[in-house]
């Protein structure tokens, strides 16, 4: 197989602040194939959104220090000039953001905002671009598309605005789509519609999709592979089934255990993860999850490599020192995967 669509190696992003350097992303490696949905899962501060924004060059600035490598189709994104990068943004890589209410400019008509992007990258007349916009809006399921293009964002519901954002993202047929919590701000029935839209899009366009989310249910619904991030680092990655049925990192167990589900009754207490994520200004030495982990031992003071640790699945990587067999018993709480309550001294 040739090189994947996107190959990120050892990406690190630091922001200088008055209180010190924030290590938002700390050595992230991952890859995305064409037509593949890779979910990047984590909580606020895990670095999942910063990773996505860095690919687009949106984190560049006087206070940001970016290192490592990110190649799209073999082209290095991180060292591109701003001019080269602008030609990639919106064209080869497009992004859909979390809050559709605030992500469209309130003072321009929706159609003009789509046309603006098309004409930035393609030599089309206004009429041609407008016709393309109508096509895109119909494609993402906006009824009466030609007419709605003349509306302003505030005249749309949240779900419709997110469709507009997706139409805009698709306007130049990107190779890679980064969707940053695309359904978090939406109602559940609308969320289901948007996920359906993304699923179709993947099969029709063969674009690679990075889905940044905190919601494991959404991940289970749409992703092919999953990358779990914690405190700036990837702690585990693998296929959907590997991650849900044979999770290796205690943080993943905690995430899986603490979600409430519609399909099962858990009258017992939810096995919550104790404590809070560490500060990115002064993360703990060694494994970042160690202070919250009930299974931590001496060796956790050293940073574990992200490497394959399960014998039969070489693509399943994690950062945890525990023995695989031991993990398989430790992660069971009341017969289900979860993180046991910590033993307090």
């Amino acid at each position, binding site marked *: 197989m040739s090189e994947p669509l996107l190959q990120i190696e050892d990406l690190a992003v630091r922001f200088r602040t008055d209180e010190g350097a924030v290590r938002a992303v700390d050595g992230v490696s991952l890859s995305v194939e064409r037509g593949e949905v890779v979910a990047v899962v984590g909580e606020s501060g895990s670095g999942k959104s910063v990773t996505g924004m860095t690919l687009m060059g949106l984190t560049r600035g006087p206070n940001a220090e970016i290192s490592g490598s990110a190649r799209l189709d073999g082209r290095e994104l991180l060292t591109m000039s701003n001019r080269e990068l602008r030609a990639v943004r919106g064209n080869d890589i497009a992004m859909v953001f979390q809050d559709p209410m605030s992500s469209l400019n309130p003072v321009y008509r929706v159609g003009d905002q789509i046309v603006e992007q098309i004409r930035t990258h393609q030599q089309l007349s206004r009429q041609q671009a407008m016709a393309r916009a109508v096509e895109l809006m119909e494609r993402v399921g906006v009824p009466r598309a030609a007419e709605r293009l003349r509306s302003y964002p505030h005249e749309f519901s949240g779900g419709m605005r997110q469709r507009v954002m997706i139409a805009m993202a698709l306007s130049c047929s990107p190779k890679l789509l980064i969707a940053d919590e695309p359904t978090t701000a939406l109602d559940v029935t609308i969320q289901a519609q948007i996920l359906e839209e993304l699923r179709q899009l993947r099969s029709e366009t063969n674009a690679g999709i990075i889905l940044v989310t905190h919601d494991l249910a959404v991940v289970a619904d749409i992703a092919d592979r999953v990358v779990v991030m914690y405190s700036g680092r990837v702690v585990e990655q693998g296929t959907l089934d590997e991650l849900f049925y044979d999770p290796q990192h205690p943080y993943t167990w905690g995430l899986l255990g603490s979600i*409430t*589900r519609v*399909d099962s*009754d858990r009258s017992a207490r939810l096995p*919550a993860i104790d404590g*809070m994520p560490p500060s990115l200004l002064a993360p703990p030495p060694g494994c970042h999850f160690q202070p919250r982990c009930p299974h931590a031992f001496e060796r956790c003071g050293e940073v574990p490599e992200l490497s394959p640790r399960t014998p039969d699945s070489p693509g399943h990587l994690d950062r945890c020192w525990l023995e695989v067999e031991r993990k398989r018993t430790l992660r069971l709480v009341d017969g289900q995967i979860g993180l046991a309550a910590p033993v307090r001294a």
Partner: protein
Amino acid sequence: MSESGLPEQGPGALLAVDHLRVLFPVKAGLIIDRTVSRVHAVDDVSLSIGTGETLGVVGESGCGKTTLIRALVRLIKATSGQIHFRDLDITAASRRQLLPVRREMQMVFQDPQASLNPRKRIRQILATPLALRGLPRAEIEAESRRLLDRVGLRPEHLGRFPHEFSGGQRQRIGIARALAMQPKLILLDEPVSALDVSIQAQVINLLDDLKEDLGLSYLFVAHDLSVVRHVSDRIAVMYLGKVMELSPAAELYTKPMHPYTQALLDAIPIPDPAENRKRVRTVVTGEVPSPIDPPDGCRFASRCRHASDICRTVEPPLTRYANGHLAACHHPQNVSAAELAAAVRSPLSPTSAGEQLPTLAA
């Protein structure tokens, strides 16, 4: 857990809401504004909460859940209907009459960041309700420490400001502030939806413990069905200002009767890839229509795949089935012929609803 066949309403309930309506006028006019239409935010809703019970209220944006809470704490005036707290009619009670009720009925907000005064230390935030409760000054400090301990924070946190805490900790402070008044009922407006997943579980567990230890009742408002399942005894599903279904918690998930409830359940992905693949899901199309002058008949009819002519003309009554399971639907799902035959019209039905009970489809 609530016993099955809980009295639908009436004496004994801690909080009883009777045919409550909250309408907001929409004004327009060139020079002088007059009311041209009305937003039906809460439209003839009847609910009750027993002592020690948790009632989950679920619905998407525009369903009226937030307006309902605001009307209950009298932040918004009800257009008609009654609210009883411990058999005392508080719908039109004066501030003075409300005082003891306000103490017993506290609120926890969705956004703990916005609901705590950023310029006050936690000590002051807690001291205000404690003083209001009539606690002597000398005991306030000790009581504040006890409250913080109760919600899983440390006494040294008293001297800090809200911004020094994480979202989850701020929500704990919000809960401590509500507890300071020694309430009987806490109205929780999406208390965990702004929090990270791992923190959500902590806060839900805390709410569970408090309910157990202090005999609290909760009204727990949420926008999806996954969180409420864990915490509720009964669940009400709302859509466009109306109660669509009201059921004992477990039964709502195994035996959803209203097509809207089914749509909500279908819409939520399950965090289990194999289960998810097995599931046959129907994605409901369209969006919630405007609550301004909504049409007659069932509010969900425009998006419902079971809808027939009667749904578009006659508002379905809330019909009572076995186990105190209520549904407002002309074509209820998962209901047997025998259950249909035994069904009765619930007195909680909106007054504008039709008389005819659902019959078995031909």
